[in-house]
Protein backbone atom coordinates (compact mmCIF):
# COMPACT_ATOMS: atom_id res chain seq x y z
CA UNK A 1 0.00 0.00 0.00
CA UNK A 2 1.23 3.50 -0.88
CA UNK A 3 -0.03 6.64 0.83
CA UNK A 4 0.41 10.25 -0.22
CA UNK A 5 2.56 12.52 2.00
CA UNK A 6 -0.52 14.69 2.57
CA UNK A 7 -2.49 11.76 4.00
CA UNK A 8 0.39 10.75 6.25
CA UNK A 9 0.78 14.36 7.41
CA UNK A 10 -2.91 14.68 8.29
CA UNK A 11 -3.11 11.32 10.06
CA UNK A 12 -0.04 12.07 12.19
CA UNK A 13 -1.34 15.57 12.96
CA UNK A 14 -4.41 13.94 14.49
CA UNK A 15 -2.25 11.43 16.38
CA UNK A 16 -0.06 14.23 17.76
CA UNK A 17 -3.00 16.39 18.81
CA UNK A 18 -4.88 13.58 20.55
CA UNK A 19 -1.81 12.45 22.47
CA UNK A 20 -2.54 13.71 25.98
CA UNK A 21 -0.45 11.84 28.53
CA UNK A 22 1.61 9.92 25.97
CA UNK A 23 1.21 9.62 22.22
CA UNK A 24 1.97 5.93 21.77
CA UNK A 25 -1.48 4.55 22.76
CA UNK A 26 -3.10 6.99 20.32
CA UNK A 27 -0.74 6.04 17.54
CA UNK A 28 -1.66 2.39 18.08
CA UNK A 29 -5.37 3.24 18.09
CA UNK A 30 -5.15 5.25 14.86
CA UNK A 31 -2.77 3.01 12.89
CA UNK A 32 -3.97 -0.43 14.01
CA UNK A 33 -7.63 -0.05 15.03
CA UNK A 34 -8.99 2.83 12.96
CA UNK A 35 -6.96 3.02 9.72
CA UNK A 36 -5.79 -0.62 9.84
CA UNK A 37 -2.56 0.24 8.06
CA UNK A 38 -0.72 -2.15 10.40
CA UNK A 39 -1.68 -5.36 12.17
CA UNK A 40 -1.21 -5.55 15.95
CA UNK A 41 1.86 -7.78 15.52
CA UNK A 42 3.39 -5.48 12.92
CA UNK A 43 2.90 -2.54 15.27
CA UNK A 44 4.67 -4.30 18.19
CA UNK A 45 7.57 -5.41 16.00
CA UNK A 46 7.99 -1.92 14.59
CA UNK A 47 7.88 -0.39 18.06
CA UNK A 48 10.48 -2.89 19.27
CA UNK A 49 12.85 -1.75 16.54
CA UNK A 50 12.12 1.90 17.38
CA UNK A 51 13.14 1.29 20.98
CA UNK A 52 16.53 0.02 19.86
CA UNK A 53 17.76 3.46 18.89
CA UNK A 54 18.12 6.40 21.28
CA UNK A 55 15.80 9.39 20.98
CA UNK A 56 12.04 9.89 21.05
CA UNK A 57 10.36 6.56 20.20
CA UNK A 58 7.20 8.10 18.81
CA UNK A 59 9.20 10.15 16.30
CA UNK A 60 11.09 7.00 15.31
CA UNK A 61 7.76 5.27 14.78
CA UNK A 62 6.58 8.12 12.54
CA UNK A 63 9.77 7.74 10.47
CA UNK A 64 9.22 3.98 10.08
CA UNK A 65 5.51 4.21 9.20
CA UNK A 66 6.06 7.20 6.91
CA UNK A 67 8.92 5.50 5.09
CA UNK A 68 7.02 2.26 4.73
CA UNK A 69 3.97 3.82 3.08
CA UNK A 70 5.42 6.91 1.41
CA UNK A 71 9.21 6.65 1.11
CA UNK A 72 11.49 9.45 2.27
CA UNK A 73 8.87 12.12 1.59
CA UNK A 74 6.38 10.10 3.60
CA UNK A 75 8.80 9.95 6.54
CA UNK A 76 9.20 13.74 6.52
CA UNK A 77 5.43 14.21 6.20
CA UNK A 78 4.68 11.89 9.14
CA UNK A 79 7.24 13.50 11.47
CA UNK A 80 6.13 16.99 10.43
CA UNK A 81 2.50 16.13 11.09
CA UNK A 82 3.32 14.64 14.47
CA UNK A 83 5.33 17.65 15.66
CA UNK A 84 4.06 20.91 14.11
CA UNK A 85 0.63 21.29 15.72
CA UNK A 86 1.69 20.17 19.25
CA UNK A 87 4.72 22.50 19.07
CA UNK A 88 2.43 25.42 18.24
CA UNK A 89 0.12 24.57 21.14
CA UNK A 90 2.92 24.20 23.67
CA UNK A 91 4.55 27.50 22.63
CA UNK A 92 1.19 29.29 23.00
CA UNK A 93 0.93 27.79 26.50
CA UNK A 94 4.46 29.01 27.25
CA UNK A 95 3.41 32.53 26.20
CA UNK A 96 0.52 32.34 28.66
CA UNK A 97 2.97 31.11 31.30
CA UNK A 98 5.14 34.19 30.70
CA UNK A 99 2.16 36.37 31.65
CA UNK A 100 0.54 34.37 34.41
CA UNK A 101 3.34 32.11 35.70
CA UNK A 102 4.01 34.37 38.67
CA UNK A 103 0.66 33.69 40.33
CA UNK A 104 0.75 31.22 43.23
CA UNK A 105 -2.40 29.46 41.94
CA UNK A 106 -0.81 28.90 38.52
CA UNK A 107 2.36 27.56 40.13
CA UNK A 108 0.23 25.26 42.27
CA UNK A 109 -1.54 23.91 39.17
CA UNK A 110 1.81 23.23 37.48
CA UNK A 111 3.19 21.54 40.63
CA UNK A 112 0.12 19.29 40.73
CA UNK A 113 0.44 18.39 37.05
CA UNK A 114 4.14 17.56 37.36
CA UNK A 115 3.48 15.22 40.29
CA UNK A 116 0.99 13.43 38.03
CA UNK A 117 3.44 13.60 35.12
CA UNK A 118 6.16 11.75 37.01
CA UNK A 119 3.55 9.15 37.98
CA UNK A 120 2.73 8.69 34.27
CA UNK A 121 6.42 8.08 33.51
CA UNK A 122 6.68 5.55 36.34
CA UNK A 123 3.48 3.81 35.21
CA UNK A 124 4.90 3.45 31.69
CA UNK A 125 7.97 1.87 33.30
CA UNK A 126 5.83 -0.58 35.27
CA UNK A 127 3.80 -1.49 32.15
CA UNK A 128 7.04 -2.20 30.29
CA UNK A 129 8.19 -4.20 33.32
CA UNK A 130 5.12 -6.41 33.02
CA UNK A 131 6.31 -7.58 29.58
CA UNK A 132 9.64 -8.56 31.14
CA UNK A 133 7.97 -10.89 33.65
CA UNK A 134 7.74 -13.56 30.94
CA UNK A 135 11.47 -14.16 31.54
CA UNK A 136 12.25 -13.39 35.23
CA UNK A 137 16.09 -13.58 35.00
CA UNK A 138 15.89 -10.31 33.06
CA UNK A 139 14.57 -8.63 36.22
CA UNK A 140 18.07 -8.90 37.72
CA UNK A 141 19.44 -6.82 34.85
CA UNK A 142 16.71 -4.22 35.35
CA UNK A 143 17.25 -4.11 39.13
CA UNK A 144 21.00 -3.61 38.71
CA UNK A 145 20.51 -0.74 36.26
CA UNK A 146 18.04 0.98 38.60
CA UNK A 147 20.40 0.62 41.59
CA UNK A 148 23.38 1.97 39.65
CA UNK A 149 21.38 4.92 38.30
CA UNK A 150 19.54 5.95 41.48
CA UNK A 151 21.51 4.85 44.54
CA UNK A 152 25.04 5.26 43.18
CA UNK A 153 23.94 8.06 40.80
CA UNK A 154 26.46 7.10 38.13
CA UNK A 155 26.24 8.78 34.72
CA UNK A 156 24.22 7.02 32.05
CA UNK A 157 27.24 5.86 30.08
CA UNK A 158 28.38 3.90 33.13
CA UNK A 159 24.92 2.44 33.70
CA UNK A 160 24.86 1.11 30.13
CA UNK A 161 28.51 0.00 30.19
CA UNK A 162 28.08 -1.97 33.44
CA UNK A 163 24.69 -3.47 32.65
CA UNK A 164 25.04 -4.23 28.94
CA UNK A 165 27.29 -7.34 29.10
CA UNK A 166 24.95 -9.04 31.57
CA UNK A 167 21.90 -7.86 29.60
CA UNK A 168 23.29 -9.37 26.39
CA UNK A 169 24.09 -12.64 28.15
CA UNK A 170 20.62 -12.99 29.68
CA UNK A 171 18.96 -11.87 26.41
CA UNK A 172 20.97 -14.48 24.47
CA UNK A 173 19.60 -17.22 26.74
CA UNK A 174 16.08 -15.78 26.55
CA UNK A 175 16.24 -15.75 22.74
CA UNK A 176 17.26 -19.41 22.57
Amino acid sequence: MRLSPARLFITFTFIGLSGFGGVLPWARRALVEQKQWLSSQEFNALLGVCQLVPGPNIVNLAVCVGERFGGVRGAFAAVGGLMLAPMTVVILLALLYDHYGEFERVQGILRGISSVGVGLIAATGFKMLKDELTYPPMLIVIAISIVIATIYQLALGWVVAITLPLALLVAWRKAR
Partner: protein
Amino acid sequence: MMIGLLGLFIKLSLFSLIAFGGVNALLPTLYDISVNQEGWIDPQTFIHYFAIAQAAPGPNLLTVTLIGWNAFGLAGALLATLAVCWPSCILIFYLQQVIAKLQHLQWKKTIEYSASALAVGLVLASAWQIAIRINGNWAAYALTIFSILFVLLSKRHPLYLIGLGAILGFFGFI
Protein backbone atom coordinates in the same frame (compact mmCIF):
# COMPACT_ATOMS: atom_id res chain seq x y z
CA MET B 1 23.18 34.43 19.99
CA MET B 2 24.43 32.39 17.01
CA ILE B 3 27.09 30.71 19.15
CA GLY B 4 24.49 30.05 21.82
CA LEU B 5 22.09 28.49 19.29
CA LEU B 6 24.86 26.35 17.87
CA GLY B 7 25.79 25.17 21.37
CA LEU B 8 22.13 24.35 22.09
CA PHE B 9 21.87 22.38 18.86
CA ILE B 10 25.05 20.39 19.43
CA LYS B 11 24.43 19.65 23.13
CA LEU B 12 20.86 18.50 22.54
CA SER B 13 21.88 16.41 19.52
CA LEU B 14 24.41 14.60 21.72
CA PHE B 15 21.78 14.24 24.44
CA SER B 16 19.45 12.66 21.89
CA LEU B 17 22.13 10.15 20.92
CA ILE B 18 22.28 8.78 24.48
CA ALA B 19 18.53 9.00 25.19
CA PHE B 20 17.71 5.28 25.17
CA GLY B 21 14.11 4.72 26.23
CA GLY B 22 13.05 8.19 25.06
CA VAL B 23 13.41 11.71 26.39
CA ASN B 24 11.58 11.10 29.68
CA ALA B 25 13.89 8.19 30.50
CA LEU B 26 16.75 10.70 30.61
CA LEU B 27 14.93 13.65 32.10
CA PRO B 28 17.42 13.89 35.02
CA THR B 29 20.27 14.16 32.50
CA LEU B 30 18.34 16.81 30.54
CA TYR B 31 17.84 18.71 33.82
CA ASP B 32 21.55 18.49 34.58
CA ILE B 33 22.56 19.76 31.12
CA SER B 34 20.07 22.62 30.85
CA VAL B 35 20.01 23.81 34.48
CA ASN B 36 23.43 23.03 35.95
CA GLN B 37 25.80 22.92 32.98
CA GLU B 38 24.43 25.43 30.47
CA GLY B 39 22.11 27.62 32.54
CA TRP B 40 19.48 27.73 29.77
CA ILE B 41 16.72 27.62 32.36
CA ASP B 42 16.26 27.86 36.14
CA PRO B 43 15.17 24.81 38.18
CA GLN B 44 11.65 26.04 38.87
CA THR B 45 10.90 26.96 35.25
CA PHE B 46 12.22 23.55 34.16
CA ILE B 47 9.68 21.83 36.39
CA HIS B 48 6.88 24.13 35.22
CA TYR B 49 7.73 23.52 31.57
CA PHE B 50 7.73 19.78 32.23
CA ALA B 51 4.19 20.20 33.58
CA ILE B 52 3.10 22.29 30.57
CA ALA B 53 4.50 19.68 28.18
CA GLN B 54 2.63 16.94 30.08
CA ALA B 55 -0.63 18.91 30.04
CA ALA B 56 -0.40 19.78 26.33
CA PRO B 57 -1.17 17.24 23.60
CA GLY B 58 1.81 15.78 21.74
CA PRO B 59 5.05 13.91 22.36
CA ASN B 60 6.90 14.12 25.68
CA LEU B 61 9.88 15.69 23.96
CA LEU B 62 8.05 19.05 24.00
CA THR B 63 9.85 19.73 27.30
CA VAL B 64 12.95 20.14 25.13
CA THR B 65 11.10 22.52 22.78
CA LEU B 66 10.26 24.74 25.74
CA ILE B 67 13.82 24.72 27.06
CA GLY B 68 14.95 26.06 23.66
CA TRP B 69 12.11 28.59 23.75
CA ASN B 70 13.17 29.81 27.20
CA ALA B 71 16.81 30.27 26.18
CA PHE B 72 16.56 31.64 22.62
CA GLY B 73 12.90 32.24 21.69
CA LEU B 74 11.31 30.78 18.57
CA ALA B 75 14.60 29.92 16.86
CA GLY B 76 15.67 28.12 20.04
CA ALA B 77 12.40 26.17 20.22
CA LEU B 78 12.70 25.00 16.60
CA LEU B 79 16.41 24.14 16.82
CA ALA B 80 16.02 22.31 20.16
CA THR B 81 13.20 20.18 18.74
CA LEU B 82 15.15 19.45 15.59
CA ALA B 83 18.26 18.58 17.61
CA VAL B 84 16.48 16.02 19.73
CA CYS B 85 14.83 14.36 16.70
CA TRP B 86 17.33 14.20 13.85
CA PRO B 87 19.92 11.72 15.19
CA SER B 88 17.36 9.00 15.92
CA CYS B 89 15.44 9.70 12.69
CA ILE B 90 18.55 8.97 10.63
CA LEU B 91 19.56 5.97 12.78
CA ILE B 92 16.11 4.35 12.62
CA PHE B 93 15.78 5.00 8.88
CA TYR B 94 18.84 2.86 8.17
CA LEU B 95 18.45 0.43 11.09
CA GLN B 96 14.97 -0.52 9.93
CA GLN B 97 16.43 -1.64 6.62
CA VAL B 98 19.35 -3.50 8.24
CA ILE B 99 17.13 -5.35 10.72
CA ALA B 100 14.73 -6.34 7.96
CA LYS B 101 17.67 -8.05 6.26
CA LEU B 102 19.15 -9.57 9.44
CA GLN B 103 18.91 -13.33 9.05
CA HIS B 104 20.21 -14.71 12.35
CA LEU B 105 17.09 -14.79 14.47
CA GLN B 106 18.80 -15.33 17.83
CA TRP B 107 21.07 -12.32 17.40
CA LYS B 108 18.12 -10.19 16.33
CA LYS B 109 16.15 -11.22 19.42
CA THR B 110 19.16 -10.82 21.74
CA ILE B 111 19.56 -7.22 20.62
CA GLU B 112 15.85 -6.48 21.00
CA TYR B 113 15.56 -8.10 24.45
CA SER B 114 18.60 -6.38 25.94
CA ALA B 115 17.56 -2.99 24.55
CA SER B 116 14.10 -3.30 26.02
CA ALA B 117 15.42 -4.40 29.46
CA LEU B 118 17.78 -1.43 29.59
CA ALA B 119 14.93 0.88 28.57
CA VAL B 120 12.74 -0.40 31.44
CA GLY B 121 15.52 0.19 33.97
CA LEU B 122 16.18 3.69 32.67
CA VAL B 123 12.52 4.74 32.67
CA LEU B 124 11.98 3.56 36.26
CA ALA B 125 15.24 5.09 37.50
CA SER B 126 14.34 8.37 35.80
CA ALA B 127 10.88 8.48 37.38
CA TRP B 128 12.49 7.95 40.78
CA GLN B 129 15.07 10.72 40.32
CA ILE B 130 12.56 13.21 38.89
CA ALA B 131 10.10 12.49 41.73
CA ILE B 132 12.78 13.42 44.26
CA ARG B 133 13.44 16.70 42.45
CA ILE B 134 9.87 17.87 41.89
CA ASN B 135 7.79 16.50 44.76
CA GLY B 136 7.89 18.97 47.65
CA ASN B 137 5.66 17.36 50.26
CA TRP B 138 3.95 14.09 51.19
CA ALA B 139 0.79 15.07 49.32
CA ALA B 140 2.80 15.35 46.09
CA TYR B 141 4.22 11.84 46.59
CA ALA B 142 0.74 10.53 47.38
CA LEU B 143 -0.52 12.05 44.10
CA THR B 144 2.36 10.47 42.17
CA ILE B 145 1.68 7.04 43.68
CA PHE B 146 -2.05 7.43 43.05
CA SER B 147 -1.31 8.32 39.40
CA ILE B 148 0.77 5.16 38.97
CA LEU B 149 -1.98 2.95 40.42
CA PHE B 150 -4.68 4.76 38.40
CA VAL B 151 -2.88 4.11 35.11
CA LEU B 152 -2.06 0.49 35.96
CA LEU B 153 -5.46 -0.48 37.37
CA SER B 154 -7.99 1.68 35.52
CA LYS B 155 -8.87 1.98 31.85
CA ARG B 156 -9.76 5.66 32.13
CA HIS B 157 -7.92 8.34 30.22
CA PRO B 158 -4.82 9.90 31.92
CA LEU B 159 -6.30 13.32 31.14
CA TYR B 160 -8.52 12.86 34.23
CA LEU B 161 -5.35 12.60 36.31
CA ILE B 162 -3.88 15.77 34.82
CA GLY B 163 -7.16 17.54 35.68
CA LEU B 164 -7.02 16.15 39.23
CA GLY B 165 -3.41 17.31 39.65
CA ALA B 166 -4.35 20.79 38.40
CA ILE B 167 -7.29 21.05 40.82
CA LEU B 168 -5.28 19.82 43.84
CA GLY B 169 -2.50 22.24 42.94
CA PHE B 170 -4.90 25.14 42.44
CA PHE B 171 -6.25 24.73 45.96
CA GLY B 172 -2.76 24.57 47.39
CA PHE B 173 -2.53 20.91 48.41
CA ILE B 174 0.61 20.12 46.39
